[in-house]
């Protein structure tokens, strides 16, 4: 395990320890619902090489360092504010975990899919979705990830995670999905 990853793991464990066991920053219940509700055949996957988790449930080992790390990497959706591509502070740890993963295994490739809510014009939303995907790409590259490991695509408002025309649905649709290709 690299020093960087070890540091992350320790940080992650501290964060977990600070939380009550059932509370997580990104409301994972909702998140899973969004992923499961997708009907385009694309499914976000846990990493094949850290297989200690399936659907966020531990299968082996007790409470330990690897668990916290995998939990962070398990967060594959980053949500955004309206008309914004700024990454909210609550995602910095999971982005750092993805970065550590990618740095450790330069053969890993990811695809960042940028999405927007349904409001406004469609082509402008393609631009906004791309800006969100690029914001995540830049954050990963700042932490040492090679540009060749990360591709982006923007779907704008064309592939919503959830249907509905209220604040709740819009918040779930303004997102970047991290898809591991290998």
């Amino acid at each position: 395990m690299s020093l960087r990853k070890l540091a992350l793991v320790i940080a992650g464990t501290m964060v977990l320890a600070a939380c009550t066991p059932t509370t997580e920053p990104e409301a994972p219940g909702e998140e899973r619902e969004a992923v499961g509700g997708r009907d385009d055949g694309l499914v976000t996957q846990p990493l094949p090489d850290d297989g200690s988790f399936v659907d966020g449930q531990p299968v082996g080992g007790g409470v330990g360092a690897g668990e916290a790390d995998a939990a962070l990497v398990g967060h594959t959706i980053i949500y955004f504010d309206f008309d914004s591509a700024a990454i909210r502070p609550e995602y910095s740890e999971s982005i750092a975990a993805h970065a550590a993963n990618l740095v450790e295994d330069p053969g890993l490739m990811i695809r960042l899919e940028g999405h927007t809510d349904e409001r406004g014009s469609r082509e402008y939303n393609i631009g906004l979705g791309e800006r969100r995907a690029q914001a995540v790409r830049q954050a990963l590259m700042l932490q040492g990830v090679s540009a060749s490991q990360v591709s982006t695509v923007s779907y704008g408002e064309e592939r919503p995670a959830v249907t509905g025309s209220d604040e709740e649905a819009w918040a779930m649709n303004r997102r970047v999905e991290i898809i591991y290709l290998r």
Partner: protein
Amino acid sequence: MTTRITALFALALLLLAPAARAELRIEITQGVSEAVPIAVVPFGYGGDGRPPLDIAAVVDSDLASSGRFAPMDRRDMVTRPTRPDEVRLEDWRLLKTDIVVIGEVRPADDGRYDIEFHVFDVFRGEPLMGFSLRAAAGNLRGAGHRIADMIFERLTGVPGVFSTRIAYVTVDQVDGRNRYRLWLADADGARQTAIAESPEPIMSPAWAPDGKRIAYVSFESGVSRVFVQEVATGRREVVSGRPGINSAPAWSPDGRRLALVLGGVDGNLDIHVVELGSGQVRRLTRHPAIDTEPAWAPDGRSLYFTSDRAGGPQVYRVGLDGDAPRRVTFEGSYNARPRVSPDGEQLAVVHNDRGNFRIAVFDLRRGGVRVLSDGRQDESPSFAPNGSMIIYATREGARGVLAATSTDGRVRQRIATTEGDVREPVWSPYPQ
């Protein structure tokens, strides 16, 4: 032999496809109060049996859909003349109609049909126009639209657009998968046909100025690429499949160039122009902001586009000579997806109107902006080629539907469809 049978079988399947019966239905939700009363008398038929199509009904429904005419119910017609010498204007004067249209359909020697029609001004007591045209049995509907176009132009001074078509995109779910389809239909919603289908998004259809080709964006390979498809043959080619975003195609008025948006690997969207003959690409804007949604001015010398270089999205204009872009819209926090009227004097946009996304028109000559729609999420405005109407997408509950409004805001139409969630309507140019 086997291949021939297979081909025939495939053809039969195509003919049986339920899509062939899909229909759009136009409803006037607001018409002008001074709509002209008009009587379109059922056309006579000079052949045996029944006529292959009720052409007068097509003309009647076209004129009604414009919101500027109030056609008389056939049951109120006391007489049904089919030849000019049978028309007694005093009868129609009593029925308080201003205009009478009569006509006759006769089979011609070559298997086609001759259609003759006459229009009378009841109050002036004089014939306004008479015309004869020949059409194939399969295109009598087209002949009806053509007749409606001529009558509309004679009576309003503006060319009719009943012979034009609209393209639009739908999405629905089949076996748990999305199905995106690009459709064409007559301007009255009839003869709807899907010309492209994919489980991945299809967006931004754009008609070539000759009405024979359509450019659009397809994500079928997992990334966005711009295609140009021939309407008649279905033959298509990729005109832009560079790394990153390829999107928002717009034809130059001469049909030789395509403006589009390229993002590159770093995702910086800028406006580019592709020469369709040589494939040569020229970059028109160079700015870290989102520059997208190009639309050509009718003279082909400049382009309008959306940019958020000043914060929120606003419309800018850039010349092909490479001058710095100049901002065009100032009223409102959000003005995007510009479309220029055929006379170049008006700009239709998606406009944030007190929290609602609506269709607004900027007057480029005198200044000022007018909001024309009243939905919460209206988008994708597209001018009719005569500049009189704008078609756009709106929402009804969770579904996308189409609507149209006259540019002066007096007439409104709602266009219902049986096909899923509808978006991105684009009005064709005049047929050539």
